[in-house]
């Protein structure tokens, strides 16, 4: 946790402490400025230890509060019980571990998703209705952003349906993976075994896979669990081998392939792969830069389902993918509230006060559907106390601090990033008709902060723009993608936001300029690309931009790049064919083998290739034609371009939707939220309106 928000809160806390200093815990004394006693190796709670360290610096303040303990007496009494508790009593386990959901009811995942997973599992174990589905329920890929309850769902279902989870872990020293649920004595045995020689991590993985699928647990009979349930097992792959390494990836793919092609073992052991969508940050641009001749290895560096699973499997019947969406705010809030209730009912809770509703709201909002980060933030909020005379003010402040502390790096989804840039909002824009009052107020607040630019001299008058509402620095900090990829997204989408060709001119020119600035190597790259691009785009786009419910598309660039790569392969094949012919003709040695360059082949050979194609088509039935000229048919990849196939044949720009980056299925979550609101109306009835206001319509998504 970033310490930025702490000193302030801790100061307050210490003031409080000193006001009731009679029961000061011993650890505080030890750390005090006058302490001559050496620190004994007592385990320090990181959170409280931190507060002690700050104490010396705030002596003047604390002395004043010492002098005036009475003014805070009322509050002090309320907090009395907290001061009584020694610091050591604070449980230092993380809430995400402590309050892990155990039943489906506690799970914040959408009911339908859980149902999907459960159905899949039951089909995998029992074969579904017809009892024949086992064959096709071999691999389940659970994908989704981090903190959407993928693992928890499996664990909860394991408990509910009574199966055991065998999890693979990339241990560095361990040789045998430990069972997931109970790290029993079996894991103890598995220390590094130096006698047996080194076994590669992947060999271990393969061994684990075969053992886990085929072998039965010999202890199951002796263990307390009944035989029938012990038989059900799944393999959980969350900690994957290093599949970004090309060779390991191939091996991994082969392992999976052989797994699905082999008949299911009895009892079936389905494989569950959990893939958290990592952001696309850190795209390996210098690999792509090396495109000059040999395209380099163009594989995506980010882990996603396509790198984890081989292409053949992905399209095949054996793999099911269940996508988890970010957790809807309503569900999230409900889960957090439930957690708080259990927490403050338990005995550990005496040391802190429950965070207010506002704090909870801030947490929910800043979590962006990541329940793990939300719980972390919540725990932090409970540790941090901000007592003071003005309750309202304190809460506001705590909310502010929380906001600063819990802000996640990738908080701005790509969708919204694009929206912010493309909608090009400027000061005094006419408000969006569908905007709520809250949004309008927000806009006004932003406008009030913006300074009008001074007017430019006449010869630059055409560059005059109203002050922009977009904070480029903030965008840069929050951008989930690097500037090269960002430019591709802009390039794909900018034309929709222009009415006239003159308006596109600026953006196109900036794109071109930014791309050509800087050098080839990464260290020569222009460090200001993002700013240049964003500012350039904002400057060039019309203001206000036309609104006709534009859709964002993913860049087509990569699919065409792939196509080009294939075509280059075909060029090479064709060239090799020419030389081969040549060698054959001249009897062993060709004197013109180097004669054809790739460009010659591409630009000049196509006429003859086309002619020979037409020829062979005409002569197909009668094989009479002297068997002469048969270029490899693959040449059509570069030689043939059909005008009739019109625009972007084969390759279609995929629409960018929100699930790619952040929020998903607003509608679903809204409906969903409503249902839960009815259930828990006592606590959250009042929030309903706000929830709806806060959750966006697709139209004003860029405000987010």
């Amino acid at each position, binding site marked *: 946790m970033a310490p930025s928000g702490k000193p302030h809160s801790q100061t307050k806390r210490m003031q409080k402490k000193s006001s009731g200093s009679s029961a000061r815990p011993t650890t505080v004394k030890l750390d005090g400025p006058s302490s001559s006693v050496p620190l004994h190796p007592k385990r320090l709670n990181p959170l409280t230890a931190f507060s002690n360290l700050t104490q010396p610096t705030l002596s003047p303040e604390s002395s004043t509060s010492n002098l005036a303990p009475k003014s805070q007496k009322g509050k002090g009494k309320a907090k009395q019980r907290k001061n009584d508790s020694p610091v050591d009593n604070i449980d230092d386990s993380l809430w995400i571990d402590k309050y892990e959901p155990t039943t489906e009811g506690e799970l914040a995942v959408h009911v339908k998703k859980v149902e999907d997973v459960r159905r899949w599992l039951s089909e995998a174990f029992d074969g579904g209705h017809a009892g024949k589905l086992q064959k096709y329920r071999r691999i389940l890929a659970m994908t989704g952003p981090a903190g959407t309850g993928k693992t928890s769902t499996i664990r909860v279902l394991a408990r509910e349906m009574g199966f055991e989870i065998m999890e693979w872990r990339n241990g560095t020293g361990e040789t045998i993976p430990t069972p997931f649920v109970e790290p029993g004595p079996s894991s103890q045995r598995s220390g590094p075994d130096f006698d047996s020689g080194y076994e590669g991590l992947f060999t271990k993985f393969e061994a684990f896979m075969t053992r886990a699928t085929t072998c039965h647990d010999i202890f199951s009979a002796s263990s307390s669990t009944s035989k029938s349930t012990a038989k059900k097992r799944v393999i959980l792959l969350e900690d994957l081998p290093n599949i970004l390494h090309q060779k390991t990836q191939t091996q991994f793919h082969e392992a999976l392939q052989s797994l699905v092609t082999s008949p299911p073992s009895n009892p079936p052991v389905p494989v569950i792969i959990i893939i958290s969508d990592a952001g696309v940050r850190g795209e390996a641009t210098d690999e792509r830069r090396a495109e000059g001749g040999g395209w380099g290895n163009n594989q995506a560096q980010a882990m996603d389902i396509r790198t984890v699973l081989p292409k053949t499997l992905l399209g095949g019947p054996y793999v099911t993918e269940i996508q988890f969406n970010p957790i809807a705010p309503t569900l999230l809030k409900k889960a957090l509230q439930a957690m708080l209730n259990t927490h403050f009912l338990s005995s550990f809770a005496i040391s802190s006060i429950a965070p207010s509703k506002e704090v909870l709201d801030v947490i929910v909002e800043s979590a962006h559907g990541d329940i793990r980060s939300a719980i972390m933030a919540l725990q932090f909020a409970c540790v941090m106390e901000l007592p003071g005379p003005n309750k309202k003010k304190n809460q506001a402040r705590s909310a502010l601090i929380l906001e600063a502390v819990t802000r996640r790096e990738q908080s701005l989804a790509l969708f919204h990033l694009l929206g912010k840039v493309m909608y090009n909002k400027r000061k005094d824009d006419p408000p969006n008709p569908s905007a709520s009052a809250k949004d309008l107020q927000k806009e006004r607040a932003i406008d009030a902060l913006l300074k009008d630019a001074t007017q430019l001299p006449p010869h630059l008058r055409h560059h005059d723009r109203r002050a922009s509402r977009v904070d480029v620095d903030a965008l840069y900090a929050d951008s989930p993608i690097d500037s090269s990829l960002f430019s591709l997204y802009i390039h794909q989408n900018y034309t929709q936001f222009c009415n006239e060709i003159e308006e596109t001119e600026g953006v196109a020119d900036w794109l071109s300029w930014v791309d050509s600035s800087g050098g080839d190597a990464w260290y020569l790259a222009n460090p200001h690309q993002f700013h240049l691009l964003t500012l350039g785009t904002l400057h060039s786009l019309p203001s206000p931009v036309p609104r006709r419910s534009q859709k964002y598309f993913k860049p087509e660039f990569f699919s065409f790049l792939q196509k080009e790569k294939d075509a280059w392969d075909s060029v090479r094949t064709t060239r090799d064919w020419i030389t081969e012919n040549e060698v054959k003709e001249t009897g062993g040695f060709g004197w013109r083998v180097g004669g054809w360059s790739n460009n010659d082949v591409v630009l000049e050979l196509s006429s003859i290739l086309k002619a020979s194609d037409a020829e062979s088509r005409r002569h197909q039935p009668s094989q009479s034609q002297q068997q002469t*000229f048969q270029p490899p048919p693959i040449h059509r990849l570069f030689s043939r371009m059909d005008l009739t196939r019109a625009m972007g044949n084969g*390759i279609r720009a995929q629409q960018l939707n929100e699930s790619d980056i952040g929020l998903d299925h607003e509608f679903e979550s809204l409906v969903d939220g409503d249902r839960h609101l009815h259930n828990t109306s006592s606590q959250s009835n009042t929030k309903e309106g706000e929830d709806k206001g806060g959750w966006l319509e697709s139209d004003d998504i860029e405000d987010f």
Partner: protein
Amino acid sequence: MSLWVDQYRPRTLDSLHYHQGLSDRLKSLAASGDFPHMLFYGPSGAGKKTRISCTLRQLFGPGVEKLKIDQRVFLSPSKRKLEINIVQSNYHLEITPSEAGNYDRVVIQELLKEIAQTQQVDLSAKQRFKVVVINEADSLSRDAQAALRRTMEKYMSNMRIILCANSTSRLIAPIKSRCLLMRVAAPSVDEMNTVMQFVAKRAGFDLPPDAADKIVEDSGGNLRKAILVLEALKMQSPDLTGPLSIAKPDWEVYCHKVADLIVSEQSPARVMEVRAKFYELLSHCIPPTIILKTVAERVVERVDEALKADIIHWAALYEVRMRNGNKKIYHLEAWVVKVMSLYKQFFYNIDMSEFD
């Protein structure tokens, strides 16, 4: 059966059909025993490579035609493997370093050093040196050219370099000054006609002069293209009489179509259409500079005189950017948008003045 272009290609300096003066000079150079580094340049299809191989034969005899293809693996500084095809005989070696993309410097350095440090072991060889032919020298990076320059001086004793390029403008001055420059101009119409008739005769058919004229006219001085077209036509209609329709290659038709799109409408939606076409061209391996050139030439044909200079100016500007940048499509599109905007403004202004 190999292509006619390869099959009927002259193999000796004597059998070359045109640029007789050049052939004589090459012959005497080969005989002099003081063979310099050389740079052959000229438009494509003019006969540079043919002349190079003829010169090599003159230098080393027919043994130089015994070629084999090696695939060599080089390691880039970032440990990436680069596979390069190398064509070699006992006396010479031919590489196309542009296949290595940005890492051409590594290839050049490694390879030349290796060649230069090995002496010619064949005692019966006519020359003491080996020749390295570097194709597409104008697409060598600056780094590679600089590396080449040092090597050329250092290993002069047992190695000669023959560079082959379309134009000298992209070669650095030190390299140009170290080479004997040989300009291979495109053949004239008559010369091309002679060659066409020669090919037809060797292939065993009569080429009607009309057809030859038409092919030559279409080829724009590119002899290789002309012979390829001839072969394609022959394949389609064996008698070569009647009205010939020389089909342009698909990519060229496509480029012209793009130009028409640009001229006929100027709007953001049209930009998207043009972009799709560009993507299609790029994904068919058509070099972006060629795309820009072809489209620009076609657009220039179709617009008003006053706009032509501007259009070419911007094409030049964006071509430079394209060389520096990574994503070719940006620059192509930026040019298109620029042209569209110019074109539109031009017409807008005309209308206004008429009203006045």
